[in-house]
């Protein structure tokens, strides 16, 4: 029986391991599918990681290296090239690698840190033929940044998620011509910073409220048609624009990778596609915790590390016998707030505040975030600007919760 097994060696898994180690747990094992640690950070060679965590602006691999170095002098064991196939309710982890074959390990606690997967063309429906030249932005990023292979010369990007924006700049710098970025929503799905420095810096037009309505090409893509959409996201006839391109990049969102979570019977929040969690990042299966993109999509790795450190510390508490109270306060949402993580808060004397993350459904200016217990407002915070592409965080003081049964988070003018 191991004390702690962590599934996934991306930034979440690494920070969770360090968090648990710092709290005094020595017997920790990380299982990682790839041959190297760092997860998605290995292909994110751009800068912009770590300004909060390290007060420095690092590239993705540099950020990962910091954590890999922090783990060097610890007793944390790492098994890379190892895929976890199944998690059972008794916290048995079933895994496979080429050296040991199939094996099973039971643990007192498990932390899930499997990250996200990209939505593909199948997950959204694009009409037209099925030629080569249609890639997810993340696949194109991996080819270019890790293999050195540029997947096209004339590019249209569908979706304004961060990966697509980052790839528009990256491919431009490598000599490709990025003709347009097309977004079906009336606002961008990515960070404003990326709109400015990936599109505006290079004069790449962003078409909001537009989508791809036709894909042409026999063997290789030869062009796409882009149309304006109405408020119900239906294409408006007569607004078609044709682009001659050999590549279409899809940057249409990420989905938390939760097959293992579902298999273990853990409850999933349909709004985040990730497990429901308590404030200590424990899922509905006792002793199993989750953190990072597997819980909800983060835009900043710094916040992934913070959340993961909390999961690590909480697993340590459980191993050391410090078990949280059972009474839980349910966090509800109202109006423009689309979800919160955690969804439940339990009584726990150790931390004075609860860190609450959430997203809004639309762009909002000069608003107040409000938390109410049904009778009164227990917490407020002002924001000058909120956008769906940017995760929000508040620190809710525990004393504000009092003996409330549930709390509602909303955003008011």
């Amino acid at each position: 029986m191991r004390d702690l097994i962590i599934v996934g060696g991306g930034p979440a898994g690494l920070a969770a391991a360090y968090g648990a180690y710092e709290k005094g747990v020595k017997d920790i094992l990380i299982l990682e599918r790839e041959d190297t640690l760092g997860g998605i950070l290995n292909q994110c060679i751009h800068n912009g990681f770590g300004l909060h965590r390290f007060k420095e602006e690092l590239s993705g691999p540099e950020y990962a290296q910091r954590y890999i170095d922090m783990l060097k002098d610890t007793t944390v064991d790492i098994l890379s090239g190892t895929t976890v196939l199944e998690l059972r309710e008794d916290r048995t982890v079933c895994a496979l690698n080429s050296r040991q074959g199939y094996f099973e390990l039971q643990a007192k606690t498990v932390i899930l840190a499997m990250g996200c997967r990209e939505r593909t063309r199948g997950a959204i429906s694009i009409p037209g033929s099925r030629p080569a030249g249609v890639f997810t932005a993340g696949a194109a990023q991996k080819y270019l940044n890790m293999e050195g292979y540029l997947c096209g010369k004339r590019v249209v990007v569908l979706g304004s998620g961060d990966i697509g924006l980052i790839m528009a700049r990256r491919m431009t710098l490598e000599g490709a011509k990025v003709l347009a970025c097309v977004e079906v929503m009336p606002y961008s799905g990515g960070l404003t910073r990326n709109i400015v420095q990936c599109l505006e810096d290079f004069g790449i037009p962003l078409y909001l409220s537009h989508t791809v309505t036709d894909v042409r090409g026999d063997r290789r893509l030869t062009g796409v048609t882009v149309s304006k959409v109405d408020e119900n996201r239906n294409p408006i006839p007569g607004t078609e624009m044709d682009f001659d391109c050999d590549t279409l990049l899809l940057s249409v969102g990420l989905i938390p990778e939760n097959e293992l979570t579902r298999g273990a019977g853990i409850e999933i929040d349909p709004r985040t596609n990730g497990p429901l969690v308590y404030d200590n990042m424990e899922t509905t299966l006792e002793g199993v915790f989750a953190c990072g993109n597997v819980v909800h999509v983060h835009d900043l790795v710094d916040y992934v590390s913070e959340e993961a450190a909390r999961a690590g510390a909480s697993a340590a508490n459980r191993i050391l016998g410090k078990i949280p109270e059972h009474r839980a306060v349910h966090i509800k949402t109202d109006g423009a707030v689309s979800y919160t993580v955690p969804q439940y808060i339990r009584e726990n004397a150790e931390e004075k505040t609860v860190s609450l993350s959430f997203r809004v459904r639309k762009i909002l200016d000069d608003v107040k975030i409000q938390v109410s217990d049904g009778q009164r407002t227990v917490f407020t915070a002002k924001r000058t600007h909120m956008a769906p592409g940017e995760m929000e965080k508040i620190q809710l003081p525990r004393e504000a919760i009092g003996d409330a049964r549930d709390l509602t988070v909303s955003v008011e003018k």
Partner: protein
Amino acid sequence: MKEMICVTCPKGCRLKIDEQTLKVSGNSCPRGTVYAQNELTDPKRVVTTTVPVSGAILPRCPVRTSAPVSKKLMIKIVQELKKYSLTSPVKVGQVVVENILGSGADVIVTRNL
């Protein structure tokens, strides 16, 4: 008054800058002031790309400029770096090119390979 979004870090603060006095407001940290002032005079960005590496587990090694460089130099730097290659082992922070194209910034390795 000119409005802009600070792109120094992913927080993306909305800055206001007075074109005459160069006084900045709306920033959450001092980098915002420097950014807004540069943006009016000579906009600067960190350049990131890859360089071939031999003998490593990957064929490409990620690199970046050690400091932001003039925006005009971005594409030139990426093209200039096509002349360089590395041999494993390389370490984070190792200099690939000093003062690239006279920008004042070095190009450094960002992954141990």
